[in-house]
């Protein structure tokens, strides 16, 4: 295999038939300065099955593989050399501009953010500041004074090393068109997963829309009805056709706006395979008429010449999915395959890699993809928004209301908490046990002890809860443990994370060796930790994860709640508020009627990891806990 920094699969043609070979060869030729001789010698025939041919040219190494009657072209740019600088969109509405002046000469050094040219737009003349990388201006592709250069057309080449300037001199338009496509956004949404945008001299800018897979199992469908006619305006998300699948008739919603220029598959056609082009959508209404005589073949024949990534119309193989489009839409839940190097690079450059299309094996995002990725210019989105706004006042309203929010960036704590708790719920099978504890005796004992404290301590109910929990953990040690791959690790020490409410949020610092300490010691520890937490001065050691957690929301009046286990612990106790209610008394009154008495009830819920703690064990723990809470004298034992 070739070692190269970037790889682009440009076109795959299944079924190797003679008629397909010519455009193939043409496309190869147009890509580089390969002699006609090379191609002729290759003598494309079925004998070439399962062979790979490599053609080297000045800038590119091109590879043609013939496998199972299909041809796969790979273009390896020898990379590192030159990168195109494209015409920027300097205003939201800008579609093309004039180069008024080059501020840098070929060979000049460019720093990030430096102005390299003056560009004249429809409104003003602006400095073009190049932000992407520093390097040397190797070649100016579009001379000063050129007019109406479309946005994203390459206008110059930049190289990172001075010595590469020479080699970039003979960089031809052919190879530059290879990368020209990169900023064009290729969206692959669920509704229209495979489609190709193309703009050439002969056809105005348009999108070939393929039949979407409307269900996970759908392979082909029938076009039962076209909801839109040729020339109709399509707003993003509008239904353009009805598609009959094996299960139901489903609306085909098109996710971008434009005008329906040409219908390629007539109403009533059945057995249309997924991704087969069904219509053409153009962004401008005046282009609609130009597509009247457009045929599917045109699309296919054209594209190799256009050097645009096009999904083959027939069955797609695994390789076909590695299109060269750099931008894909992924839904948030999708797993992103990315190589470590690529991930690192993305992080370094602060690029959100979730939308980069991978070109590595199994569509993995490789480092080169990240380096080649140009984040979607914001201006483009604004253009869309503005257009929509202009066209429909109703939608304008929606646009403005949808901006009624502020994004609060995640703090580090929030990010860590989110990650840990999500992981907890995903890996730990939680179940919840709720118990009522009558705490009248405990309250009485607390008052008595506090009255004799001589200001050395002031016990809270929470201190008793901590102590009772530690005693119960000693009785039922399975709850004081961790699930590991091969074993359950039971801890002999009892370190409890205790919820402390502060103005900064709820913290759960650690109280160590609770079982070995008295109520006053626990109480003072918690008090100290609470003070530190209030001052935001907890040390990392005091934040450590202990063996059990108690979360208390009683102060907010919560009756009971189910907490998420704090991994790698196996359980968490959620303490609610105390409530006073009448309960049947133990004694019988003189007239034979049962008496009622007032009771203070505390609700606690234990969340358990069922892998470690079976229901009966968790229940046994709560039974012990309740016993200690209801008979606090037992805490002395």
């Amino acid at each position, binding site marked *: 295999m070739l070692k190269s920094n970037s790889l682009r699969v440009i076109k795959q043609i299944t079924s190797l038939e003679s008629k397909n070979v010519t455009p193939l060869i043409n496309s190869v030729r147009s890509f580089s300065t390969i002699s006609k001789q090379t191609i002729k010698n290759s003598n494309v025939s079925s004998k070439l099955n399962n062979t790979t041919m490599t053609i080297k040219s000045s800038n590119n190494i091109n590879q043609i593989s013939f496998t199972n009657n299909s041809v796969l072209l790979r273009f390896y740019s020898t990379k590192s050399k030159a990168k195109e600088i494209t015409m920027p969109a300097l205003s939201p509405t800008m579609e093309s501009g004039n180069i008024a002046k080059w501020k840098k000469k070929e060979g000049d050094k460019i720093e990030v953010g430096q102005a390299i040219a003056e560009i004249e737009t429809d409104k003003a003349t602006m400095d073009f500041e190049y932000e992407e990388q520093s390097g040397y201006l190797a070649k100016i592709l579009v001379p000063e004074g050129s007019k109406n250069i479309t946005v994203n057309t390459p206008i110059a080449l930049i190289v990172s090393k001075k010595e590469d300037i020479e080699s970039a001199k003979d960089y031809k338009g052919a190879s530059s068109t290879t990368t020209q496509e990169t900023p064009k956004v290729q969206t692959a949404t669920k509704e229209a997963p495979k489609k190709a945008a193309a703009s050439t001299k002969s056809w105005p800018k348009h999108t070939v829309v393929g039949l979407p897979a409307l269900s996970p199992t759908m392979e082909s469908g029938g076009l039962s009805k076209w909801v839109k006619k040729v020339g109709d305006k399509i707003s993003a998300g509008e239904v353009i056709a009805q598609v009959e699948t094996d299960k139901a008739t489903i609306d085909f919603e098109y996710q971008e706006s434009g005008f329906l220029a040409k219908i390629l598959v007539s109403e009533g056609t059945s057995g249309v395979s997924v991704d087969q082009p069904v219509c053409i959508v153009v962004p401008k209404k005046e282009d609609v008429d130009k597509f009247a005589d457009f045929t599917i073949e045109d699309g296919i024949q054209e594209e190799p010449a256009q050097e645009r990534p096009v999904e083959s119309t027939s069955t797609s193989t695994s390789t076909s999915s590695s299109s060269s489009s750099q931008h894909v839409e992924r839904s948030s839940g999708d797993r992103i395959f990315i190589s470590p190097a690529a991930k690192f690079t993305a992080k370094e450059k602060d690029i959100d890699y979730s939308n980069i299309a991978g070109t590595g094996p199994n569509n993995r995002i490789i480092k080169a993809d990240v380096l080649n990725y140009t984040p979607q210019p914001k201006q483009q989105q604004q253009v869309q928004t503005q257009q929509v706004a202009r066209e429909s006042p109703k939608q304008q309203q929606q646009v403005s209301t949808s901006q009624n929010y502020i994004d609060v960036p995640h703090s580090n704590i929030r990010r860590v908490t989110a990650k840990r708790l999500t992981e907890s719920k995903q890996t730990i099978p939680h179940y919840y046990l709720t118990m009522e504890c009558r705490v009248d005796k405990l309250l009485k004992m607390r008052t008595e002890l506090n009255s004799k404290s001589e200001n050395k301590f002031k016990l809270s109910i929470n201190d008793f809860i901590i102590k009772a929990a530690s005693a119960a953990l000693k009785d039922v040690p399975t709850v004081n443990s961790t699930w*590991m791959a091969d074993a359950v690790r039971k801890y002999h*020490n009892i370190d409890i994370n205790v919820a402390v409410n502060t103005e900064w949020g709820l913290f759960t610092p650690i109280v160590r060796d609770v079982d070995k300490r008295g109520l006053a010691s626990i109480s003072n520890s918690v008090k100290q930790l609470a003070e530190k937490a209030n001052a935001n001065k907890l040390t990392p050691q005091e934040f450590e*994860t202990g063996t059990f957690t108690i979360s208390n929301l009683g102060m907010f009046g919560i009756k009971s709640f189910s907490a998420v286990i704090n991994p790698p612990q196996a359980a968490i106790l959620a303490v609610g508020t105390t409530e006073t209610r009448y309960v049947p008394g133990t004694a019988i009154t003189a007239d034979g009627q049962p008496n009622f008495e007032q009771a203070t009830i505390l609700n606690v819920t234990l969340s358990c990891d069922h892998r470690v703690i079976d*229901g*009966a064990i968790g229940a046994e723990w*709560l039974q012990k806990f309740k016993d200690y809470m209801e008979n606090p004298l037992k805490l002395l034992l």
Partner: protein
Amino acid sequence: MNQIIGKRFFSSSSSSLPEYLFPSVRRLLSDYNIVNVSEIKPTGPQSRLLKGDILSYIQSKNLKPIDSRTLQSSTTASSTTTATATTSKVFQVDKENEKRAGSTVKFEDIPHNNIRKVIATKLTQSKHIIPHLYMTVECDISKVLSLRQKLLPLKVSVNDFVLRAVALALKDCPEANAKWNETTQEIQLNPTVDVSFAVSTDRGLITPIIKNTNTKQLGDISKESKELAIAARDSKLKPEQFIGGTFSVSNLGMFGITHFNAIINYPQAGILAIGTGRRVIKNQQFTTADLDKLDSLLATSEAAKPQIIDIMDVTLSGDNRVFTDEIAAKFLDTFKKYISNPESMLL
């Protein structure tokens, strides 16, 4: 809620130890109880100790690993699972901070037995696959308790009444006696009512089945459940006695649990979690149907007077794909009617 910064679990930083030790090194140090780490010459990058450094040190000093049994804490776990732990180890990790002056983190690792592995896999799978729905109703069991007294000397437990009521409710609501077929993505009704009930054993949780529960009378259910529970505890259950079942019952009432949310016993679609019976003071309960005549009902002294009744909370965990809210509510209501009027179950 639990804002705990993701620190290493039990970081063993200590003044006498280097900043960072590889896990293998730390393990060796504790296994051989090496205290004078500074004596060992580090050869790793940035003068880090490598496992090889420790091994050569051990060889040169001819050290022996400390017998883990001598370190085993005298704390004997009261939990039954400890008894089955064949190879328990105790590790000591030095840990020093102001609060834990010189004390150590101690733990023992209890290797998983087969049942534990199965429980872990199945329940994790269940929570992953099944969208759990929880629904709780409060049932008046005063009549069950008085009927129990009347049936003496025949000993029938509350749990037997629950099993019978569940079976009859499943029979009445066949859509609740169903499961989700993953391949067809459809609800599949079960032809028979086979209720599993959770039994806690030394080795872990097991759920024996009372086959065709709805056809069996209270006495039969009582006898069979006792036999199955004993067989389960002696691990003498045959596979067909605990594999299958169409619905489960888990009862933690004997521990005084008010109510709880159980995990569905996949591939079943429902489990009923039975809480404890408790005495409460209640005014007579009225349903929405009684609203019209509420004034006249309250006028009678009996209805207005608070009464002491025995209630029991039951929580259904249902597979929301099978138990739509409506089916779940209907099933629970049917169950409640049976358990509140036990004489209807005797037929």
